[in-house]
């Protein structure tokens, strides 16, 4: 299947994050009644009850992710997450997986730089067992040697692939440039050496420190009542400690001196990742920045970069930008790919558009269209139980409040042309843009050296 547009893989998460942070309409609020459930044992979750289908989705996360990995053991958080469903309690890896599979229970664990998260989806008839298996995975993981070795080998194969994947090379390179002295610059998936160095004791210590209730956020959507959910929350998460001693990650500011680093690689098309400092989620100007990004490159087909670089000149199949708001830093990043001969032209157009929006701001029509898009797009995220639960989880973790959806449209409407001009002018800094170009670009000067991979 060929699609007309595809976001670059690394961008998808950034853009989704942006959407999740920013989506709501009054329409959706009416359709979605969010309840705050507090279990008898004091565990809180947000719930959207929906009994139309015998399915329940649960999304949860603990604050703190791969950025807490100790130096030399990068990949610890990710490997730990991958091993939680590889055997727990009395069940070895195969028995555990079969127990889930034969009940059509979908369970997974994941990490990002700032999060250790999990998803559970189950049919109503297997709900109690699903939560019990989740409890086992969180509190009684086995870390059997054969499973550990198998997962390590899978990680190492994945890394070998990433080292040959131009997209991964570009995006890993960009974060190394933007965060040379901070955990955000390190490869969250680790290296073959650092994965090799991770021991079971490290993983057990990670869980003990990280999986604390004070850092836990939970959202559920589907076929369950608040009372039923409350009881299952206690049974599942109740035995976790209230507090842990997770490593603190310092706040930081991304590199802003700008420049271009070329990673020479024999391929017909150069892959480019670029970025500069962004806007924190709790900044009062966040929505203005979100609108600026939408007009610049966030709106896929409708954005200025897409119009100028793709539609007008046919330089790329896809170009887009996104605001990535992490817990300790914020960046505005983007990506494109073009034949080697036209990289210089593409970067020139990109910088010019950056400059033009910073200097002139958007037109009245662009601003109106952007506000209309940003307010209207929220409801699209409510496509399924798990996507609704993900939205609820993001709102909680960003401290936006349970009434966020009701307030959101108003806050967006309140953004004025003056706000957007001011924010565009302060935010968009062409000279602060760092580029990583993977390929054999013609006429592009490399004036930055990538910090080595750790």
């Amino acid at each position, binding site marked *: 299947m060929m699609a007309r547009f595809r976001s670059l893989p690394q961008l998808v998460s950034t853009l989704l994050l942006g959407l999740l942070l920013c989506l709501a309409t009054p329409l959706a609020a009416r*359709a979605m009644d969010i309840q705050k459930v507090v279990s008898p044992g004091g565990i809180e979750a947000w719930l959207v009850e929906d009994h139309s*289908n015998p*399915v329940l989705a649960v999304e949860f996360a603990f604050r703190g992710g791969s950025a807490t990995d100790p130096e030399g053991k990068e990949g610890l958080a990710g490997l730990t997450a991958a091993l939680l469903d590889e055997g727990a309690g009395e069940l070895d890896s195969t028995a555990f*997986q079969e127990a889930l599979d034969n009940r059509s229970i979908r369970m997974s664990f994941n990490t990002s730089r700032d999060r250790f998260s999990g998803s559970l989806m189950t049919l109503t008839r297997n709900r109690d067992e699903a939560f019990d298996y989740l409890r086992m995975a969180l509190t009684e993981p086995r870390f059997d040697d054969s499973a550990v070795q198998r997962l390590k*080998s899978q990680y190492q*194969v994945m890394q070998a*692939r990433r080292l040959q994947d131009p997209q991964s090379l570009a995006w890993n390179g960009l974060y190394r440039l933007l965060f040379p002295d901070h955990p955000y610059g390190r490869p969250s998936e680790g290296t073959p050496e650092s994965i090799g160095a991770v021991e079971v004791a490290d993983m057990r210590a990670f869980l003990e420190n990280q999986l604390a209730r004070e850092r836990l956020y939970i959202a559920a959507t589907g076929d369950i009542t608040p009372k039923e959910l409350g009881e299952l929350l206690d049974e599942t998460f109740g035995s976790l400690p209230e507090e842990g001693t997770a490593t603190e990650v310092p706040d930081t500011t991304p590199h802003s001196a700008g420049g271009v680093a070329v990673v020479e690689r024999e391929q017909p098309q150069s892959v480019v990742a670029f970025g500069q400092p962004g806007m924190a989620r709790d900044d009062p100007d966040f929505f203005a920045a979100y609108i600026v990004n939408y007009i610049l490159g966030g709106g896929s*087909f*409708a954005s200025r970069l897409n119009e100028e670089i793709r539609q007008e000149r046919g330089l790329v199949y896809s170009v887009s930008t996104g605001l990535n708001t992490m817990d300790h830093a914020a960046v505005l990043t983007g990506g494109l790919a073009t034949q080697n001969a036209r990289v210089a032209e593409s970067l020139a157009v990109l910088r010019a558009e950056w400059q033009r929006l910073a200097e002139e701001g958007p037109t009245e029509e662009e601003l109106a269209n952007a506000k209309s898009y940003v307010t209207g797009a929220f409801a699209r995220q*409510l496509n399924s139980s798990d996507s609704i639960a993900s939205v609820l989880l993001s709102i909680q973790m960003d401290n936006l409040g349970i009434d966020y959806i009701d307030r959101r449209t108003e806050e967006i409407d309140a953004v004025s042309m003056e706000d957007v001009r001011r924010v565009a002018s302060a935010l968009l800094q062409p000279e602060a843009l760092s580029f990583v170009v993977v390929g054999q670009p013609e006429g592009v000067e490399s004036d930055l050296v990538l910090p080595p991979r750790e």
Partner: protein
Amino acid sequence: MRNLLAPLVFFVTLALAPVVQAQVFEPESFTLDNGLQVVVVPNDRAPILTHMVWYRVGSADEPVGQSGIAHFLEHLMFKGTDKVEPGEFSRLVAREGGQDNAYTSYDFTAYFQTIASDRLDMVMELEADRMTGLLLEESEVNPERDVVLEERRSRVDNEPSSQLSEMVSAALYLHHPYGRPIIGWEDEIRQLDADIALDFYETWYAPNNAILIVAGDTTVEEVRRLAETHYGDIPERAVPERQRVEEPRQWASRRVELADTQVGQPSVSISYLAPSYNTALGDSSDATPYALQVLDELMGGRTGRLYQELVVNQEIAAGASAGYRANSLDLSEFSISVTPRKGDDLAKAEAALRAEITGLLEDGVSEQEVEQARQRLMDSVAYAQDSVSGPAHFIGRALTTGQDLKDIEAWPDRIGEVTAEEVEAAAELVFDPNRSVTGVLKSEPTS
């Protein structure tokens, strides 16, 4: 599809949930006087809907020498009509918070918008307008051809595994156009222009060759009223029969190998020709595609035979999987693949993969694993119906590849009837080396 990473994810999701039971989704269907078939899947969980138009034409219908025209036309469909400026379609949809896109496959071309449910009128007006009024200016067509060439560079030229997939397909089909890449061969893409695109458009894009699907927060009455208003006046036109050549008897197994310093993850796959719902192979029956889905389920996946044996028990592989899709107008494929653990021997992994096939053919499958696979497949119905837009994508694919709504409705029952003997017979039929291509992706050390 086979060679594309991002859309692959999308299709894998559908393939894992091949699940659309009409009595569950309660789709309603009617046909306008001009032959446009309309399907409605009401679902009011959120105030959104997905509006799709599917054309019964894809890359396998392209004239020889014009590979890529179906996909190029799909791109050009956003370049305007006498009522809508180039690019305006997407701008209008975005302004309402909607998302629009399109995709092309061998057998179909699909256009969709997901948007607030009170904007159905607007997206229908836009979509109906471009069913007849496409205008193509050179100044729009030329840059878009460059866009497609960049798309090809991203997907194929920069990606050794996609290059291998292209060769595997070309080798698997000796004669049938499924052997050509959907995006087209590069030299032929370069030759495509507005006239060729308009010719293809005027040949195939007609209401009587299209299916309109609306899934989400709407009613059949509303869809009927709006469809009459916007699509009802488009005249029916004669559309040619889809002329597909048949794949001849294949006499020998084939092997294609690609070695490149830029391969980070070596792998071996074996692709076998297989029957689809719509097209038999050898002495396959109507039940065979269902049996093959059960076979796929019990071989692939985390608890399937391949992963359990090659990855968990023998510890020689990092990954192993199977894949089969029953929805295809002509033949389909059943494929299996293995990725060795780092440093492990590719040949050893391939031998172990083949041994699994041999073992399965010799010893058969157990009643228990068939029972569990059937149950998982039937359970996937509930997950599939949990999505608002998913059913629209699934139904469109089924209806453009020879199925009807009753077939979709009967899916869980048909899966539930599959026996171990049928699975064994299907395996016997499909795992024929003479109808297979082995694709080997090797990492070549840098000198």
